[in-house]
């Protein structure tokens, strides 16, 4: 089936980030969003472990392991970088100072509930900063495959996995579509032109509402 690559989902999410926005990118896949800032725009990236305005990854071998992001990957300094401790870092998060947080997801529900930290009681649970981010940033967006590896919907009427936050997500960028969450509903904004509405609906665990035209989700080869 035609679908966007992770890189392409990240690219699409990056297009909605304004110049000068303060942005936190979840560890792993969401970190990729930083690579695709549109020309002329420069977001300022925040990482939970106390850096604002850091730069991209250093060359291999040039890492300084005191200069890392929340995913423990090495980053670099940029003019205007600031360091601070963890309580100040989460004051930025919890206090509503971030413009956007972009996170991964196991499941997103049509009321904005997010499940992205635990796949259930087995294994070792780990939460990190996700539960803080979902209630802090002015806009919480998710980037995700539209369905799980075994084809099950990740956009659901209600999450079945343990929640990260309640009613917190407002936009989902998937491998097939861009979906807003409004008033307890999924509202379809964009979809791949190659996929029909019916097909998209069949891969989605709750009704996709329409509110005006659905745009084509056009993403460059990357």
């Amino acid at each position, binding site marked *: 089936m035609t679908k966007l690559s992770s890189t392409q989902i990240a690219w699409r999410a990056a297009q909605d980030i304004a*110049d*000068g926005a*303060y942005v936190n990118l979840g560890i792993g896949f969401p970190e990729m969003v930083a690579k695709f800032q549109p020309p002329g725009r*420069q977001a*300022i990236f*925040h990482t939970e472990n106390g850096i*604002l*305005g850091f730069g991209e990854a250093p060359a291999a071998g040039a890492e300084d392991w005191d200069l890392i992001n929340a995913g423990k990957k090495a980053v670099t*300094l*940029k*003019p*205007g*970088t*600031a*360091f*601070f401790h963890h*309580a*100040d870092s*989460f*004051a*930025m*998060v*919890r*206090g*509503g*100072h*971030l413009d956007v947080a972009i996170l991964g997801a196991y499941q997103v529900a049509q009321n904005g509930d997010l499940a992205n930290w635990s796949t259930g009681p087995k294994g070792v649970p780990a939460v990190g900063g996700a539960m803080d981010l979902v*209630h*802090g940033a002015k806009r919480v967006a998710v980037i995700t495959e539209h369905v799980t590896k075994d084809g099950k919907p990740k956009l659901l009427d209600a999450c079945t996995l343990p929640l990260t936050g309640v009613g917190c997500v407002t936009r989902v960028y998937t491998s097939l579509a861009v979906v807003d969450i409004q008033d307890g509903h999924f509202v379809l904004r964009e979809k791949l032109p190659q996929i029909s509405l019916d097909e998209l609906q069949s891969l989605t665990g709750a009704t996709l509402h329409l509110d005006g035209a659905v745009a084509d989700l056009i993403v460059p080869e990357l």
Partner: protein
Amino acid sequence: MDKTLPDLAAAVAGIEDGMTVMIGGFGGSGAPIELIHALIDRFRATGHPKDLTVVNNNAGNGHVGLAALIEQGMVRKLICSFPRSADPRVFTELYLAGKIELELVPQGTLAERIRAGGAGIPAFYTPTSYGTDLAKGKPVEEFDGRPYVRERWLKADVALIKAETGDTLGNLTYRMAARNFAPLMAMAAARTVVQVSHLVAPGGIDPEAVITPGIFVQGVVEVPHPAQEEDLNRANAVYPEVAQ
């Protein structure tokens, strides 16, 4: 992304009637005199803003800065810990005449309430003021056998603060004890406007030395050689100067 403002008038342009305005400073140290005077200029030219709620540790001294703002009749209510100074006449007379409201808050509680506002903490418990008149009407709860008073966060529409060096992204350093409430107020206001003595490009401040990261700052205006409230008062200054 450049947060530089062209002048003091632009810096105080967004402040409207009825807003809550936090003003940095402990006595004269850290008082953003030029921003306050610019706000007075606007009020004298336009009649606005008025009915302000002002948050500051004190209530002004003499006839400049915060005292002058109060003297102009722009302030409906003051939230502070210590409305006394070498010359507190302006506030005292209005207060005793019932023309200005006062919410008296213990200094540490004031600082923590402002920080809580900036940090997204709607309420917290403190031992401070337990059993006193200042705890009246506030919920009390015991933790580990000791009673504590619940206090609410404090936020503002605008913060006016003074910093020493600022870059165009809003990263700030302060000068000695002029720091006091400013980093907290920067966090707690929807819009924080800073007068900096030195404006530099990004990279002009050591990332380790940043006290207020730029995320808490919305506007920066350079005011080289700012006035020190204490010096003005020792010179018996009055703002605005009385026409001859």
